[in-house]
């Protein structure tokens, strides 16, 4: 009986909040965020890639020197050292200033790149005791497990955004046919 009373009270409180102006405003904003989540993720990717890409270019010598010490890819240090920051900045610009199919393709490439970084992190975490990370800016100060979780979250968000954008595009196409 007590539980039932508590539940009813809780429902009354929720209804009151819902019917209040502030509650309605909050609800509208939450709905807007949910609808725009894919776009928010795209912009977040652009921000992240611009930040890390610019940071790598800013510390280019250190980044190339660090790459030279990584087993297997050390011989391509110069190419990777210059290529990755340029690719990141290019992706950031394309993510922000493109629409439709180009936007989705750019997002796919961005997510694949994030996947490559995640695989690199996981490999280092499992196999290499003398680990190296020149990931750019504050991200470098994370410990390896946190960094891996951080990357996995980005990867998940990216995959969600790709699916959501594709679904939205399909729905739009269907509407146009009608």
């Amino acid at each position, binding site marked *: 009986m007590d539980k039932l009373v508590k539940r009813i009270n809780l429902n009354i409180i929720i209804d009151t909040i819902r019917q209040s102006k502030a509650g309605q405003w909050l609800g509208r904003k939450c709905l807007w965020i949910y609808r725009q989540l894919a776009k928010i993720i795209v912009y977040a990717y652009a*921000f992240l890639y*611009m*930040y890390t890409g610019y940071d790598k270019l800013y510390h280019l010598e250190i980044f190339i020197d660090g790459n030279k010490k990584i087993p297997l890819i050390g011989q391509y240090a110069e190419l990777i050292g210059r290529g990755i920051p340029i690719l990141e900045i290019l992706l950031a610009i394309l993510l922000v200033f493109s629409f439709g199919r180009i936007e989705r393709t750019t997002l796919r490439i961005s997510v694949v790149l994030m996947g490559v970084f995640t695989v690199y992190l996981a490999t280092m975490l499992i196999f290499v005791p003398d680990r190296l990370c020149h990931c750019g800016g504050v991200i470098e100060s994370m410990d390896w497990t946190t960094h891996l979780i951080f990357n996995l979250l980005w990867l998940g968000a990216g995959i969600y955004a790709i699916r959501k954008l594709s679904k939205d595009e399909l729905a739009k196409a269907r509407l146009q046919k009608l």
Partner: protein
Amino acid sequence: MKTQIKNLVKSALLGVAVLGGAIAMQSFTAKQVVSDEVEIKKNTALAPNFLVNKGTSFSPRSSVNTSTNCIQADSKSCVYELTEEGMENVPDQGSYTPSQIEEYESNGWISPHPQSASALYLN
């Protein structure tokens, strides 16, 4: 048509703001690191302030996180700090051998970080 142009301008402005924000944030964090370094030491041969234990060698670092990275036990200290004398004398190298570290420590150029135990540095 008017709404489309309006939306296009809006998203372009938002894009510029996002990318500009990222660059501004990078510049801010980079400046902070540089000013921290300048505060700690002025006339130094080696740019970073710390030497971290990587097992077979020691690597220079500008900043360290001892609580998360010094967890795997080892015979040597996890992080060494450069002393004022060390800032003028330790040569700028990509890595240092354990014997070099012993030499620098006996010269008083480096000292174990107060918050680091004997461990490997995991980053």
